[in-house]
């Protein structure tokens, strides 16, 4: 009965992939000059600003949930842990794919392994991507092993699982924040609404927020795609944490602006002001809404809030990574169609891969009864809290 809708999506999917293939041809044959609108004045564009900076961030649900479930031992969130790890793993794989497009010499992507410069944030980012992708692979491996019933390697992985998880959380923390640190070296280029010495901290907190939002987003989509009931109590619980994280984030940003005496910039009628406003509004609205228990009980509203956070996050990363740098670089940048095509293709393939893997491997394993009951308790608990 959902066939027609599926067909529409398939057509869109195919169109995106075809444009992506054309763009790839351009990239391979004519280099970065032929496939992007980058220039000497503006060396980083959409592929860094979105594919890398957002890809890594949107994957942060993985480490957030691992911390919640395994470190803080809040077991009731276990049912949504695996999808979050899968998203994170795919997210990182696609960051690597994005890098293969963006690097001038993708054939040398392994160079940071053997050529070191510990003073470079990019060096740190490179190592974190590599190590954390490996960790995510190992964290997801049990799902694959279960599917094929290989119990021996499963036991090995179990043995190293705690240090592995701690390593993963540390790497993510470093990595999320160091994406912000990348821009510490451009104090004169990045617009003052965004340039701050605490960029790493801001990036870390917003990554945690978007990790939670992405988990809500995924749970909602998976429940539809796989015809399962939404784990509403769980998701509502996450939403509550999300509201707190967002509040901390926004408060920190306000303090930062006032501390640096740049609040007056907000009265200027510039593109930057509006983009900044958009980014903040997209974070502020869900922060306020999610404090209401009524909103948290409605799947549609929860989903809407999660989407806002995701877009607010993307707006922030694009502002820091591209638009906020335009004035300081004395130039304008609008991505070429091929840059957009590659980005869309990566996202589309990501969605498709998630679906394919989730329907073949036990990602959404039915979890034993008590968990759901415990979940129901939280919802009641949270109602009491917010009443």
């Amino acid at each position, binding site marked *: 009965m959902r066939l027609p809708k599926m067909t529409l999506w398939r057509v869109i999917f195919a169109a995106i992939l075809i444009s992506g293939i054309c763009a790839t041809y351009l990239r*391979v*044959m*004519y*280099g*970065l*000059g*032929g496939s992007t609108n*980058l*220039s*000497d*004045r503006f*060396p*980083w564009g959409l592929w860094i600003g979105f594919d890398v900076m957002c890809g890594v961030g949107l994957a942060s649900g993985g480490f957030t949930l691992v*911390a919640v479930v*395994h*470190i*803080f*031992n809040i077991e009731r969130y276990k049912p949504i842990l695996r999808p979050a790890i899968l998203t994170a793993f795919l997210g990182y794989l696609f960051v690597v794919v994005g890098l293969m497009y*963006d*690097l*001038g*010499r*993708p054939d*040398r*992507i392994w*160079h*940071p392994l053997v*050529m*070191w*410069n*510990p*003073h*470079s*944030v*990019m*060096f*740190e*980012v*490179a190592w974190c991507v590599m190590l954390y992708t490996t960790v995510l692979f190992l964290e997801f491996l049990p799902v694959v092993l279960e599917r094929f019933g290989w119990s021996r390697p499963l036991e090995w992985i179990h043995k190293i699982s*705690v240090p592995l998880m*701690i390593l993963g*959380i*540390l790497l993510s*923390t*470093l990595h999320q924040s160091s994406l912000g*640190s*990348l821009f*510490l*070296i*451009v*104090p*004169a*280029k990045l617009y003052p609404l965004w340039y701050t*010495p605490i960029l*790493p901290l801001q990036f870390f907190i917003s990554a945690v927020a978007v990790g939670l939002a992405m988990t809500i987003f995924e749970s909602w989509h998976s429940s539809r795609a796989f015809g399962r009931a939404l784990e509403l109590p769980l998701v509502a619980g996450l939403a509550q944490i999300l509201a707190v994280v967002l509040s901390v984030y926004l408060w920190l940003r306000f303090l930062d602006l006032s501390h640096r005496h740049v609040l007056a910039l907000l009265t200027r009628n510039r593109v930057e002001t509006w983009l900044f406003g958009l980014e903040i509004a997209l974070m502020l609205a869900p922060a306020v809404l999610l404090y209401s228990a009524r909103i948290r009980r409605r799947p549609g509203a929860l989903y809407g809030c999660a989407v806002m956070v995701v877009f607010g996050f993307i707006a922030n990363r694009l502002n820091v990574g591209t638009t906020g*740098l335009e004035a300081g*670089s004395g130039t304008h940048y609008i991505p070429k169609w091929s840059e957009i095509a590659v980005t869309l293709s990566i996202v589309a393939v990501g969605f498709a891969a998630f679906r394919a893997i989730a329907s073949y491997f036990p990602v959404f394993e039915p979890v034993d009864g008590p968990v759901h009951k415990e979940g129901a308790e939280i919802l009641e608990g949270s109602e009491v809290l917010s009443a």
Partner: protein
Amino acid sequence: MSKAILYDSTLCIGCKACEQACAARWGMAYNDKIAAEEQISAHKLTCIQTHGEHFSRRLCMNCVQPACASVCPVGAIQKTGLGPVVYDASKCIGCRYCMQACPFQVPTYEWGRRLPRMRKCDMCYERQSRGQLTACAEACPVGATRSGDRGELLAEARKRIADKPDQYYPAIYGLQEAGGTSVFYLSAVPFAQIGLPANVPREALPDYTWRVLEVIPGVASTGGVLLAGIWWIAHRRAEVAKAERERQ
């Protein structure tokens, strides 16, 4: 001693002999069309610009503490003891962080090539290590570009300003910019009027990043211990709770 270049805009006659010598030294094409370009690019590593009645020259500033060298993930860019900031194209992965980080927008990229390189002036590293002048300084017919010892050139620049205070804007560009560079400018007018970026921080840029990077080992090890501790407590509590439930 460390080498430097002194460019005196008030002496420059805009003949572009430096451009030509630079192109020859790098083995790059040079013709009227390229001579007319007033921007540095991957095929033109220095250029003469006209700003009203004043000339200006752009080239790599070869900073004392270069941002580009500090950000390069593979260490393809190095500050040499001699002064020049050199680049090893065989290491470069093409991330272009050096271009993003440079406050003078100097590094350029071979955008059109399939196997591109970053390109920038390296103050004639191999010529200077043989004791020669830079190609541009050697070519300059009027001494507007001079190369030599950094300390001596600085003294010379100060002397020129002191001798003819009415002809010079009383500052040396490059002395404090980005924590100090190896290219000094003298000009009759404020430097922004001859196209030099005015908002370059006075502090060495790598410090901005290093302040964060240096705390990482501490944060990481503390974080690791903290996480392990939380894990232990959380699981211990669960075990105790379970044991108690079983006893009842």
